[in-house]
């Protein structure tokens, strides 16, 4: 017996050409630069949140905390208003994302059906709102006269459907083969059955993407809350943060600084920023794999 014709490990696929390797190298360099540029501010903020105030003011904190202490974390985390606002943000985001996804999916699915009567008009209405809007005061008057002031509905309802997301989902649904649904209909499924049992499982990627888009957008939103909420215990944490950071520099008159409206400590600002960003950071890795995985799991059989 021939002993050991070891199969050498061969790289799969054809050997990369020289041009391709140069491209990979340049690509790598550019992307590394982008990573450093985008990562640096974040590392800087984290470093600041762990440093002592005067080092920050003296400009000596860049990537590594100086005067390491968790005092500011303790201070911010013991502020009950911070926790109330944080809880508000979580509640608003979850509720709003849920409502948005349900509404957007329904509208997009319906619009993707070519045989829908008045389809052009319905699409037109949605697109119209991308370009024109009532303006600040009419919107405010509308929401307050509906009695939605100081209620969660003022946050989750007005911006429930983002038209851009709607159009993306519609395009996706249109790309699903009609034969699939026809086959399901032949098997006896109702419209809702088709939507829930055939279309949805195939749309995991796009739904996950939309959930992420909506969730991040609602997590970061502050303007709707600022407009329609009048009680400090209903504010989301973004307003709390904005007040900390912009509250002092918003002074329009010289006298404002004198009544204590001086800048909140830089360390408190950075701690609040880090605490606000962490949940989104944690969610991203789990959603990310949906972007990458394949879409078409089943196919038209037979």
């Amino acid at each position, binding site marked *: 017996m021939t002993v050991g014709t070891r199969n050498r490990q061969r790289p799969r696929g054809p050997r990369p050409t020289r041009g391709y390797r140069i491209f990979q190298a340049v690509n790598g360099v550019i992307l590394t630069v982008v990573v450093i540029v985008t990562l640096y501010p974040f590392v800087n903020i984290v470093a600041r949140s762990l440093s002592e105030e005067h080092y920050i003011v003296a400009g000596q904190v860049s990537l590594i905390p100086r005067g390491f202490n968790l005092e500011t974390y303790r201070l911010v985390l013991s502020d009950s208003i911070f926790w109330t606002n944080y809880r508000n943000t979580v509640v608003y985001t979850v509720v709003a994302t849920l409502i948005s996804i349900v509404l957007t999916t329904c509208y997009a699915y319906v619009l993707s059906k070519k045989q829908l009567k008045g389809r052009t008009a319905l699409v037109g209405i949605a697109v119209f709102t991308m370009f024109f809007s009532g303006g600040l005061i009419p919107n405010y008057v509308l929401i307050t006269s509906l009695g939605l002031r100081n209620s969660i509905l003022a946050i989750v309802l007005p911006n429930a459907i983002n038209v851009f997301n709607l159009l993306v989902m519609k395009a996706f649904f249109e790309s699903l083969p009609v034969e699939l649904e026809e086959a399901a209909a032949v098997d006896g499924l109702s419209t809702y059955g088709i939507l829930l049992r055939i279309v949805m499982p195939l749309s995991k990627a796009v739904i996950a993407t939309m959930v992420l888009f909506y969730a991040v957008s609602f997590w970061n939103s502050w303007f709707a809350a600022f407009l329609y909420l009048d009680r400090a215990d209903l504010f989301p944490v973004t307003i709390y943060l904005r007040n900390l950071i912009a509250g002092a520099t918003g002074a329009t008159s010289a006298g404002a600084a004198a009544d*204590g409206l001086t800048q909140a400590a830089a360390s408190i600002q950075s701690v609040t920023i880090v605490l606000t960003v962490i949940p989104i950071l944690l969610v991203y890795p789990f959603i990310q794999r949906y972007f990458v995985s394949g879409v078409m799991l089943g196919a038209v059989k037979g």
Partner: protein
Amino acid sequence: MFPRSRRRAAAVAAVVLTLALTVSGCDSGNDSSDANDLSGNRAGAMADFGVGTQFKATEPLSFSILHLNNANYPEKKDWLFWSELTKRTGVTLQPTDVPGSDYEKKRSLIVGSGDAPFIIPKTYPGSETPFVASGAILPVSDYIDLMPNLKDKIAKWNLQADMDSLRQENGKYYLLPGVHQDVWVDYSLAVRTDILDKLHLQIPKTWDQLHDVLKAMKAAYPTVYPFTGRWNIPQAGGSLLSTMGQAYGTNAGWSYQNATWDATAQKFVFTGAMDQYKQMLQELNTFVKEGLIDPESFTQSDEVAQQKLASGKAFVIPSNAQSLVNEYRPALAKTIPSAKLVKIPVPSGPAGEVKVGSRLENGIMISKKARDSKNFVAMMQFIDWLWYSDAGEEFAKWGVEGTTYTKDAAGKRTLTPDVNVVGLNPKGTKLLQKDFGFFNGVFAYGGSTELLESFFSPEEQEFQKAMAAKKTLAVPPPFPFNSEEREQATLWETPLKDYVTQMSLQFILGKRDLSEWDAYVAELKGKKMDSYMDLVNKAYERYKSDHS
């Protein structure tokens, strides 16, 4: 196309719809007849309310108020301020919370949509003007008789000319300003006195002396720009130019207004073209040429400026009392322990030993809807007591005697041992603002000099004493526009101001030579400077003839 009657009906409907869409009723006219008939509005009011009386409503009342939520002392429902206020006056306030970062925007929105609370505080003089035309706020000058404490202070402190500066074209004013007994100058320059000592220099009292001090500092530390600037938002060079403008007899920086009153010529002149303004720019240009002032002074962020000071890369920086104690000194204590920083009295210049500022402070607008409330008179009395009476001002600032402060026989107030505010009692564990709700910028402003200074450190009181020795300039007369003039003026004012700001920076930094001054004035003329000044002077003449 449509029969005549249909078209007319449609036209009428369109007009009605437009009017209905105009949210707050434009009702500028019949105030004078309504103003006198208060018989239906006296529920809860005191019959004998006067100066020195404690306001107590005859029945429990509640009023809505717009409340600016300051990040440094976020509003709490259980503040002693709220409960004690109700106990003393019988009034419960219902605050609408607005984050301090966007207060003006929310206020405009709420007032513009007709949904405003009755009491709208934290309104700076001049910022009530946009709301006048819409009729959303009350011409409070009609109701000043309901406010004995305010009238008393206006008379006692001679504030008539200051109040006149708030009058609109119809002769009425729409803002109840915070009033100070005396001009309160807070902003000046802070200087490293340990460096002065090292170089055997005196604290400069004039800009010329400051020039010499800076030159000596530069000679000793050639790699450093001794003078750096901060507070460049919303106006580049805001604080620095404002402080310097005082010395040169002009308005600059964040005190900039297009029209300056020229007392000798008895008319208004354009600030950006004044000789005094040019002199000021020239002086700063010399500083830049000699490397005495940091060229980034007028554009850098506050953070960068503070870093330069804390790391010893600057020795002179604009300052007020708070930033000296809360920002500069703590940072320097850790980085350069031997440093000593002192806020110097505003250096004087060609204009002499003058003190420039207004005695009017941010104040209160009243929503038009409040006038129809049956508790209107009680509300005015309440406002008068809390914001303008001695007892109310002391309460809003110091709190409750026995709990937050004590008063000795001579009337001097001291904080109780466990209460701290603005660093006066570092051993205190509870904060007057954060935990009790007193000294809140919404309620505690203005007042007698004695009350104002009661919170000042001994060092700040020295500063104020030095400033008090300077002469206060007379208040310039008003020039209220009517609505067409206001429209026209608004079109011209902003481009003029922006151009002056832009060119000022260029002249200072040497990007444009001061020999081109006449060309610059010609460019201003091209931007309608003369037309604007004509408008201003015409409005002033009209006001003078109508109201003298």
